[in-house]
């Protein structure tokens, strides 16, 4: 490739004898704090939402939910036991048999549409609550999580009266009652991904939010009440692993939908083996973000940053493995370092914060443990010198270079702001390395060459392949994995069909 040689020769190092020119990202113009001040309207205690009512757990037990940004308690959340889960499923079955399952799609659409509108009306309040409970920067919950959640409800409201067209040649019917368990990284959005298609198709739902981020689900229950959704159509049972197991193993649901770690997904699949329950699993990932030498490099760097540091890297489709074409590896690394120096880490409620708090202490410890392994295995670590708040769970954005395929940080999902950089020489090597993982949720390709994008998107074993961009979502676009990243799709026509019986 003559272009590579040309590129290398233009990158002449600065004249010897003089120090290499450097950019200064100092404190000449420090930004003052810009806190978001909207009232999240939190209650001090949240009960379970069963049969259209907030009810206390039968056990009377509650657990604390804290703000990971300062470790302060935000509220008490009801702990659902087996009896509560059972009550929720009974309500869901009743609602399916008497109201929701029989309602014409055009009527269901009105309720779903109303949920979307009511959420938009209270967007700021929900964004603040999401940030307080989960630690993500307010600009992300404000500009991404909440609008995207509303978009999913709008999109599926649009489908509800057009279901006769969703599977040409077939009629469709709802499955019945479904049990759903969602993770803590996008509490509201994951809830919408689960609930909206289920409701549009006419199913009823028992859903367990993640134990560290239950607040916005239970706040959404207020919206469901305001929307006058018939009782029992959606039920929320909060709690930790045991509650989740009760939701999954209950005999009532005909379908189980789970988003979370591959480890837990496997446990669920084992426990459901031999039953007639349908399943969709959206599990972990270790996505390859592949950058070729002809890519627009500054925009690729921006995409790499967006791919791994969005939501503190708590993204199952995060571009955590960076595969760079060898001739431009040094250049990309240098540009990444400069870009990291201007990322603002700190208080998630500050409108200028780019990287907020790690969701929980156990997650922070897991990230620390894996980063230590990277250092021990001999990879070279870079972290910008940013100040971190003294209280709360924070982790500096981190890049490892000189990573090889056998390093733990190249194989295990870190689920934090940690990027592992590897290099490749040829297209085939890039594909081989990208596919050399148990996961297959997403991938990215950066190149100026259209034919290469098409080849890569065919060869990469990943549910989503982004070309010259990363972490882009849309309700119309199906999302889901290959291999141990799960099966089934969410979003689009395909996602809807996972909640339908074809007749």
């Amino acid at each position, binding site marked *: 490739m003559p*272009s590579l040689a*040309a*590129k290398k020769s*233009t*990158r*002449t190092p*600065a*004249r010897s004898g*003089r120090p*290499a*020119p*450097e*950019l*200064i*990202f*100092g404190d*000449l*113009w*420090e*930004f*003052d*704090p*810009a806190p978001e001040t909207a009232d999240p309207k939190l209650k001090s205690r949240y009960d379970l939402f069963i049969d259209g009512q907030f009810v206390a757990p039968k056990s009377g037990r509650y657990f604390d939910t804290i703000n990971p940004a300062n470790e302060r308690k935000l509220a008490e959340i009801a702990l659902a036991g087996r009896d509560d889960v059972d009550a929720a499923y009974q309500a869901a079955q009743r609602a399916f048999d008497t109201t929701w399952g029989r309602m014409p799609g055009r009527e269901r659409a009105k309720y779903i549409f109303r949920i979307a509108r009511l959420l938009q009306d209270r967007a700021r309040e929900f964004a603040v609550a999401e940030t307080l409970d989960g630690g993500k920067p307010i*600009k992300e919950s404000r*500009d991404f999580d909440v609008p995207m959640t509303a978009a999913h409800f709008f999109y599926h409201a649009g489908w509800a009266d057009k279901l006769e067209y969703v599977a040409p040649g077939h009629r469709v019917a709802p499955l019945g009652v479904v049990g759903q368990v969602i993770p803590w990284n996008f509490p509201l959005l994951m809830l919408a991904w689960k609930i909206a298609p289920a409701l549009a198709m006419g199913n009823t739902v028992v859903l367990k939010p993640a134990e560290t981020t239950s607040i916005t689900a239970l706040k959404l229950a207020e919206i469901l009440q305001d929307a006058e959704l018939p009782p029992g159509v959606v039920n929320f049972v909060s709690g930790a692993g045991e509650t989740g197991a009760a939701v999954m193993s209950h005999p009532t649901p005909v379908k189980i939908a789970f988003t979370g770690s591959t480890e837990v997904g496997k446990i669920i699949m084992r426990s459901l083996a031999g039953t007639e329950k349908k399943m969709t699993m959206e599990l972990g990932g270790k996505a390859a973000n592949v950058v070729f030498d*002809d890519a*627009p*490099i*500054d*925009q*690729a760097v*921006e*995409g790499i940053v967006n791919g791994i540091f969005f939501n503190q890297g708590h993204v199952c489709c995060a571009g955590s493995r960076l595969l760079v074409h060898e001739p431009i590896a040094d250049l990309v690394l*240098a540009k990444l370092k400069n870009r990291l120096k*201007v990322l603002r880490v700190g208080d998630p409620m500050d*409108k*200028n914060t780019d990287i907020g708090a790690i969701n929980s202490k156990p997650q922070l410890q897991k990230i620390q443990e894996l980063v230590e392994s990277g250092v021990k295995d001999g990879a070279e670590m870079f972290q910008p010198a940013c100040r971190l708040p003294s209280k709360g769970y924070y982790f500096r954005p981190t890049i490892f270079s000189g990573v090889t395929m056998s390093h733990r940080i190249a194989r295990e999902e870190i689920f934090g702001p940690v990027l592992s950089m590897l290099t490749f020489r040829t297209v085939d090597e890039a594909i081989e390395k990208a596919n050399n993982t148990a996961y297959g949720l997403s991938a990215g390709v950066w190149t*100026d060459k259209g034919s290469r994008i098409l080849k890569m998107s065919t060869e990469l074993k990943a549910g989503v392949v982004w070309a*010259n*961009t990363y972490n882009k979502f849309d309700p119309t676009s199906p999302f889901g994995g290959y291999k141990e990243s799960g099966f089934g799709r969410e979003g689009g026509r395909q996602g809807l069909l996972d909640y339908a019986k074809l007749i």
Partner: protein
Amino acid sequence: MVAKSPAIAFRRLFDEVGTVDQIGVEERVAKFTTRSIKKASKIWGLKKAVSMVDLTTLEGKDTPGKVASLCQKALQPHDDPGIPTVAAVCVYPSMVRHARKHVADSAVKVASVATAFPSGQAPLKTRLGEVRAAVQDGADEIDMVINRGAFLAGDFSRVEDEIAAVVEACGVAALKVILEVSELETFDNIRAASFVAMGVLREGDFIKTSTGKTSLNATLGNNQVMLEAIRDFYLDTGIAIGMKPAGGIRTAKQALQFLIAVKETLGDAWLTNERYRFGASSLLNDLLRQLEKEKSGSYQAPYYFSEAAESY
């Protein structure tokens, strides 16, 4: 023979300096617009922006009187003594000596557009003569336009040679090279043209977006492409080139967003009027209005500021 083919010239140049993805640039600059600048940091930014303004009048109807009042505004933007003077006044060559007389030996520089601004469509000899005349009349800085026709035809050496000739004609005066981004159209071209220009510029010279005489002027997008070109050129060669977005920046809010782009792309060393300028006229009074608002807590009518004709 082959090497002289314009198509090959373009490919070689793009290959050398790299290409730009438009959607990616627009996504990057959208992040600058979500930054929230408050209190002391806002005042710092607004004052910095005032000090970076090249206060401009480029009209056929300009007179020595108009230039005199522009100069007075440049020297004393507002009653508040805490507000700095602007960086320069920018006028046509025939007005340079009038401007020189008024700003005298203050910190405000005299900049003159030259080289058959805005089209550049005059013989090179005429253009160079115009530059020399402006410098002789007392211009500290020359704003030239590049030969867009030659650039688009792939004749980069001609573009380069002409800039080099203007550099020579400038003598000690600083040079600002206007790319006229709206005529180059693509971000790829803007990046490539930035490199062609920087290759013959001296430390302390500038590249500039536009003349203000065409449909599209400075945007956060083309500003970013040029900032990134300056950054890459600096890291490669150690030569620090300045940047001047011109036209279309009318509000203080816009100016702060442009400054955030500078802070996050080139860093602290470019947050000075020796390396960053705004080519603007109505921007100045909006900056002053925002500064007054920070001080008093309420907005004042435009007619409380000198040289502002608008009213309610």
